[in-house]
């Protein structure tokens, strides 16, 4: 960005623009309207139309943004990610506090209608997630030493592990729902599905960030700043999982 000594607006050279934030915002508006149409006004058809508008807008917006912004300004994003994680941690804190409060006040636990939760699956999931944290860390290390090829390999492994985690989560959910344990069954169901669901959404976001960085990695010019930031987020998701496992599954 060059600047001449310009005077007032008349002489301005050019102002940076980007359409993508606009597109994403209005895509989100469409999603919100879809929710209202479906759940409040019971007009699924209108909801589908809104989804049909909103989802492509958001996907296009994110894709456009990523391709436009790649390689600019990531140096600062590590610090920014720290602040963002603080905000995210507070959401989980709010969920957990509501849960503790409900549970400590309950006359007995688990409440009626709870089914036997799987005990082995969460352990496997934990192992997978921890492993993925290690692999990305190792990949980062290789990247730092300039080994783009090695990084690419470990990035792919990480993505695979993350996907595996989501798959197991989905399997577990369908299994429980089949047994008749749903988000509306009782307060435990409420807590179980909302907390694991919310955490799962974070795994999904983390994966999306990695996927956004994948093309650059494939081309062999992954940026270190980007990877460090994405890795930080991933570690955060991993740490939250420890709370989820210990509080929701094994307590």
């Amino acid at each position, binding site marked *: *960005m060059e*600047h*001449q*000594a*310009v005077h*007032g*607006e008349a*002489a*301005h*050279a*050019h*102002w*940076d*623009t*980007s*359409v993508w*934030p*606009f597109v*994403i*915002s*209005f895509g*989100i*508006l469409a999603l*919100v309207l879809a*929710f*209202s149409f479906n*759940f*409040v006004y019971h007009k699924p058809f209108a909801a589908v139309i809104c989804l049909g508008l909103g989802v492509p807008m958001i996907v296009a917006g994110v894709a456009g*943004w990523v391709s*436009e*912004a790649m390689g600019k*300004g990531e140096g*600062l*994003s590590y*610090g*920014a990610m720290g*602040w*963002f994680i*603080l*905000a*995210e941690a*507070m*959401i989980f*804190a*709010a*969920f957990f*506090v*509501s849960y503790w*409060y*409900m549970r400590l*006040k*309950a006359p007995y636990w688990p*409440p009626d209608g709870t089914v036997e939760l799987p005990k082995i699956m969460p352990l496997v999931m934990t192992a997978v997630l921890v492993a993925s944290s290690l692999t990305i860390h190792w990949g980062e290390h290789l990247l730092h030493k300039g080994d783009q090829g090695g990084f690419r390999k470990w990035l792919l492994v990480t993505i695979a592990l993350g996907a595996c985690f989501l798959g197991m989560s989905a399997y577990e959910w369908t299994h429980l729902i089949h047994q008749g344990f749903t*988000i*509306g069954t*009782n*307060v435990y*169901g*409420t807590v179980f599905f*909302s907390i694991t669901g919310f955490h799962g959404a974070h795994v999904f976001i983390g994966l999306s960030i990695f996927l956004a960085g994948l093309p650059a990695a494939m081309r062999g010019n992954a940026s270190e700043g980007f990877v460090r930031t994405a890795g930080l987020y991933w570690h955060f998701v991993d740490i939250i999982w420890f709370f989820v496992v210990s509080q929701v599954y094994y307590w």
Partner: protein
Amino acid sequence: MNIKEWIFTTDHKRVGILYLIGSITAFAVAGVMALLMRAELSTIGPTITSNPSNYNVWLYAHGAVMILGFQIPALTGFFANYCIPLMIGAKDVAFPRVNALSVWLFYVGIILAVLTFFIPDPPDVMWTGYPPYSTISTGNTALYTFTVLILGFASIIGGVNFLTTVAYMRAPGLKWGKLNIFVWCTLGAFVLQLIFVPVLGTAVTLISFDKYLGTHFFDPAAGGDVLTYQNLFWFYSHPAVYVIFLPFIGVIYEIVTTFAKNPPFNYKMVVYGGIFGIVGLSGEVWVHHLYTSGMADWIRIGMMVTTLMISVPVGLMVIGLAGTLYKGSITFETPMLYALGVMFLFLIGGLTGIPLAVTSLTVHLSRSYYVVGHFHYVMAVAGTFAIFAGVYYWFPKMTGRMYNERWGKIGFWITFIGTNIVFWTMMDIGVKGMPRRYYDYSHMSQFEGAHQLMTIGAIILGIGFVIALINWIVGAIKGPKAGENPWGSKSLEWTTVSPPPHGNWPSPPVLEEGWSPYAYRRA
């Protein structure tokens, strides 16, 4: 002027002006709601509508839009965007695109809020959205949830952006101890937003979960608890009042120092005592909104003490303002008039918070018009005056032109009189027993006269605001040229041309030894 370069802009100044336009629009909409409410209350029984629901929807929209759509975006959106990069000598913010995303999400939030008037079954849950009513109301609670969520998310990404900007993008040589007080205040507000908005987001999300997905968070019949929501909500919404207070008092500091031509009195006291103190205490007082909600005694009493203690850092900030006037060379242009209005009227608003902080007094005062009077003094009067003061103050910087001084002053005095008529009366009838959120007060007919007086006052103050709005529009189009630094301020934003070009300065400003944004003192 190129429309595309405005709508898709990523420049912080233009994003800021988009924020300003959006939030002033929100103010006008919510202000019209207030006038409708006042019209309805001007007589006992139905006046302009015979359906209480209409009144409740206006009140919901008025509260939610004024706080979430007007004051928070104007203060942390417009002022932060416009002023912070200029004050720290940066070209732009750290993430310009994220900035653009945040302003458009803000517009989406405003659109959702305004949809209230066009959809069937609009939300009528008040800005607090307490369950169980919000989960059984026939109104569209989802709209409330998403309005809050989207505005909250816009604010969070804004906060991340500005904290990063100030941390890494200050002009060379600009140390933390030399930042403008406004910058410190806004950082404090953003830290509060980052910590507390997510909790609010969770609370309102759980409301929609309960209502639409069949969960039981707040359903006592299935083991939930209605008080969980109130705690989560106020855990955010009390700090939110300091998200409003901090930036607005920061604006007042900028103005008072400039028009008194003095550095702020005891900078360190203001920053480390005042701002840090407020940020530190604000998360430990929320139960003062639940004094009549059946909370345990120990926590009421503990939070009574912490709430009262907030008067200490706030008091330090007030002392700082008063001290700045000492031995000044004070002039009284419009921004300064509004700023002085804030200094006097905030005293009333803040001090009337003190009885509210006392559990045993609040047992009578809570949920009455006394509370309504208290928070209108701090927000609707002090907060709005501060926003108006700031817009007048930076007006020449933003537009390169001058507004009309005479009309500015006339507008000020009209609003000043109007606000005091309305909000003083509110406190008076509140103590005498007038409950808030009443569409009709037929069993308390003794208050009719007072309500009529307030309706008249509201019209007066509305006229004052409209004068200010017209003054800005006319001034922006055909005011006389203002020049770089009409107020003779020393702060960095006044060292570039008005309006500043993209990138703000041809090259980053270089600060000499001993530079300070408040270097008014003669050697």
